[in-house]
């Protein structure tokens, strides 16, 4: 049985009892991502709190809220994302994203940094199944997109 290597208990827990699910106001930007191969989708909102006067990488991720439709991997991944990123700065969040993306592309040979990834290390087994990597990354790509939009909107507003 290889199933348990993919469906770690942490993943199943997040799937059954997702954290921070549901869309909330106010928010800086929203992003809607679809996995065209299976039709799964996520709508994700990012709320940022500026550190100084301007909204930049030093801003704090104040809230991430989402609504999603999809498999256990994509659902659990969105839930873990909110746990990891809320309270971090945007720059720190991007580092977590990079680490998580690298883990997903590791084909099962990654050595995840548990200090950075926390519960997300449970997704290491998913990286052995190429068809499921997109599921795990769906919410993360939406977060990246919504965050970029938040910062861009700020820039437009300032100029």
């Amino acid at each position, binding site marked *: 049985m290889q199933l348990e290597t993919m469906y770690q208990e942490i993943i199943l827990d997040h799937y059954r009892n997702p954290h921070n699910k549901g869309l909330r106001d106010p928010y800086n930007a929203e992003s809607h991502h679809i996995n065209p191969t*299976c039709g799964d989708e996520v709508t994700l909102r990012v709320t940022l709190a500026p550190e100084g006067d301007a909204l930049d990488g030093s801003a704090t991720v104040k809230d991430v809220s989402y609504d999603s439709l999809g498999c256990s*991997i994509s659902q659990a991944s969105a839930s873990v994302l909110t746990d990891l990123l809320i309270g971090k700065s945007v720059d720190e969040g991007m580092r977590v994203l990079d680490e998580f993306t690298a883990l997903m592309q590791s084909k099962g040979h990654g050595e995840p940094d548990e200090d950075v990834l926390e519960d997300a290390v449970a997704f290491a087994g998913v990286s052995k199944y190429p068809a499921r990597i997109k599921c795990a990354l769906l919410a993360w790509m939406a977060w990246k997109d919504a965050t970029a939009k938040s910062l861009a909107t700020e820039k437009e507003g300032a100029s």
Partner: protein
Amino acid sequence: MIRSELGLLDVDAIRADFPILDRTVRDGRPLVYLDSGATSQKPRQVLDAEREFYERHNAAVHRGAHQLAEEATDGYETARATIAAFIGAGADEVVFTKNTTEAVNLVAYAMSNAATAGEELSRFRLGPGDEVVVTEMEHHANLVPWQELCRRTGATLRWFGVTDEGRLDLSGIDDLVNERTKLVALAHQSNVLGTVNPVREVAERAHRVGALVLVDAAQSVPHLPVDVAGLGVDFLVFSGHKMLGPNGIGVLWGRRELLAAMPPFITGGSMIGVVHMDHSTWADPPQRFEAGVPMAPQAVGLAAACDYLSAIGMAEVAAHEHALTEYALKHVAALDGVRVIGPAEAEDRGATVSFTVEGIHPHDVGQVLDDRGVAVRVGHHCAWPLHRRFGIVATTRASFYVYNSFADIDALVEGIQAAQRFFGVAPAR
């Protein structure tokens, strides 16, 4: 379990021809291949035919003054005749394409090219006020090219709905298919529902109003006896790889007089009559639609696949799959929490069973099945609007062929139950 052996093929003997079915997957599990609707496996006879072409006769066909070119051309054209006979057609009515998708696009782009041509191509011309009719159960391959054709020409796309039972809703046919209709495009057999559509009835209505009819037979030619004359349509398209044949070859069959009048889609070498610096004329069909060096080894392989299926007998293939479908509908649909999307009865229904499992996403069902060696497809199966029609995002699909047995369906049923246990949604008995 009571098993009817009526109509069943000698699956053990057939499986012996398919080397891949002997392998194991995922830590030594025997492979249970239930994804023939996506692509079929290939028997040795097909692989041998393709290999022999390369080892003995390989040359660019319809070119060259040497013996190999002669043999290759002969192999290619003999293959065309075999494949044409398989669907009751004349060899000059069979055009080779890359696959079903390209065959649909060939007709769509020919019509698109005709839209800017003169009166001589009026049969294929369409513009604002004209209509193209499809169905809600189409594979994207028989939907998107028509959306695009309508977008380019200003014509209107309309469609037949699908009933809750998964049948084509023909109640509005007289309104839907009318004097404005230029073309009706529909699947012979749905790649999700398994539904076999009443093509003849739709074609009769279409022809009464002067519309052309194209049938997507990608899921029917591999599984049912198909006779183009009997269907009464104008174009019929299918792929080699879903019928035991090689990848990279598909077929457009078109009525002789239509192909003769139709402008080309892809232009270039071998499809020409005479070429000048500023203009060219076209070859007769089928060469007009086969620009470039064609896929002769694949044509030879597909002909071997037709021979293989003919030796079994397409009526026997259909009877075998009918028995499998009845068995699957009975045992899969009987599981608590399982909803089959498509007709509940096996009549006018092919060997494709799509379903949802309450509380488990199809990706997760597929993963558990895969862990047990059972290969199925999950997702929307390139029929997104159809899934939306049923209020779902995705399904798990099992599709059967000549090499499948009742035991394979038992493995599917056990796998679904294992998924229900694994995800803690096993129904209380």
